[in-house]
């Protein structure tokens, strides 16, 4: 785990509200695993106290990329930066997705920017699989090309029907699971809590493993402040808090106690 001053090498705009930035940070890039995140401090914004967490979207050649949505103060400020500017990164943080699946087919489920860690995961997995990408509208469907390049099967769902199937991505997933009962996939999902909960339900019903990456507001990012906690059920049966930043952000569906 490192702190690096990372220079922005490139900024892409995959949609009105979305940006991809490529950051030079060799130490972080060299040790990043899918599902891990970086904790970013924005320069110049003297009244911002907290870093912002972003999943690692790509890691290669000493660079990482992140894919983010502009939603508030920090991400707006980030969107003003250009190639050459620097940000301060801590990372790679957290426990990522388990990558060693033997024989099973990976099925990925993404909601909005949740596709970012899953695109990284797909690159690192040895097996090709199916990716379900969901969003409110066509503008929220990202990274289709990345998965095409990897020859993955791609299913898209939008709530307004502007791209792919109309409806929730988890409904499309459910239909697929029902149609392919013989395939025993491992599920990987990242997206809003509602989506994760639905994926979790589908997995538990069918006795499938599901690795879910949670999105919680963070303080320290390293397990010290206890801001990001999620209620979990431990193997011994009792419940308690887990730290999304340190014990996660990835948890198996059965570990999570939804509220």
């Amino acid at each position, binding site marked *: 785990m490192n702190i690096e001053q990372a220079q922005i090498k490139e900024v892409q705009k995959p949609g009105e509200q979305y940006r991809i930035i490529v950051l030079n940070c060799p130490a972080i890039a060299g040790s990043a695993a899918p599902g891990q995140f970086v904790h970013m401090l924005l320069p110049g914004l*003297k009244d911002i*106290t907290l870093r912002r967490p972003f999943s690692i979207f790509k890691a290669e050649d000493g660079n990482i990329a992140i894919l983010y949505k502009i939603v508030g103060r920090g991400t707006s400020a980030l969107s003003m930066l250009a190639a050459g500017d620097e940000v301060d990164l801590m990372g790679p943080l957290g426990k990522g997705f388990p990558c060693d699946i033997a024989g099973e087919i990976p099925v990925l489920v993404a909601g909005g920017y949740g596709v970012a860690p899953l695109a990284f995961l797909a690159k690192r997995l040895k097996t090709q699989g199916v990716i379900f990408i969901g969003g409110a509208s066509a503008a929220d469907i990202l990274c289709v090309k990345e998965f095409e390049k990897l020859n993955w099967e791609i299913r898209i769902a939008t709530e307004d029907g502007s791209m792919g199937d109309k409806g929730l991505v988890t409904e499309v997933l459910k239909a697929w699971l029902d149609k392919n009962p013989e395939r025993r996939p491992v599920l990987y999902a990242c997206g809003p809590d509602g989506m994760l909960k639905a994926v979790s339900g589908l997995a538990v019903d069918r006795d499938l493993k599901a690795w879910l990456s949670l999105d919680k507001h963070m303080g*320290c990012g*390293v397990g010290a402040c206890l801001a990001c906690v999620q209620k979990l059920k431990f193997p011994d049966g009792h419940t308690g808090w887990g730290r999304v930043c340190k014990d996660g952000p990835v948890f198996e569906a059965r570990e999570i106690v939804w509220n």
Partner: protein
Amino acid sequence: MPCKYDGNMSNAGKNLDMTVDLAGIRMKNPVMVASGTFGYGPEYADFVNLSELGAIVVKGISAEPCEGNPVPRMVEVKSGLVNAIGLQNPGVAKFIKEYMPFLRKHDVPVIVNIWGKSVEEYERVAGCLNDVEGIAGLEVNISCPNIKEGGIAFGTDPKSAGRVVSAVRKQTRLTLIPKLSPNVPDIGVMARAVEDAGADAVSLINTMPAMVIDIETRKPVLANTVGGLSGPAVHPVAVKLVWEAWKAVKIPIIGMGGITCAEEAIELMIAGASAVAVGTANFTDPSTASRVVKGIREYLARHGMACVKDLTGSIKTR
């Protein structure tokens, strides 16, 4: 004071005496990390050389394990944050078992922050820590705004504060450091009350009671409704309270509140602090404490001062 001496002339002042003896706790330098912002030590160990810290104050520990508050527990505000963690902790027994072996491996004084919901609970947790190797002091939190009973109720009334401190005093031979609330009309009265009750030093400030409402939902952002404000926003308040406490008592003061750079630490020391603690700024930049140490060195060198101790209370009032 704005931030300037941020450890850029890193060779400055190598021969300075940066040590501080804080009521028996011998520290390499006066810069500690504040309770609740640095976990129990291991969390930041990948980013910070723990042995370079003046001391580590661990997250508040109680006699029994505590769940803390529901989430959300933290929200950023202008120049700070408001938190209501609610003193989640594994309880004193598990703390000793899980974290003390790690902490003992490092060459850094460990101060254990303790709290309770009654005088008896304070006594109990202090008692459990008495014979544990590797603990230098107890910081007694009588000022947490985030729990219903105990906490701040003890910290805003001099008599109750005195009672808690006397009770803990009887349980412990460790350096005893009550932590005061900023939320009182006269901090001097509080500081004297705990000094009289047997405190060896005093810590201030804890967070200030605060609240953030999401105007779209009209609900409080924090699940606990209210929380405690920390960070740069509270620094000028901390300076004032440290100065008032310094005038009121003879025991040393650990000053904290909004430190992000050496200037702000120096300001607290000039106001009367013998040591300082970095809190919220650890989240922004885990190297804050080490930057502060370097910056203090540079300041001392530039001002021809030999000992960091000489900063304490060196304020010149007109």
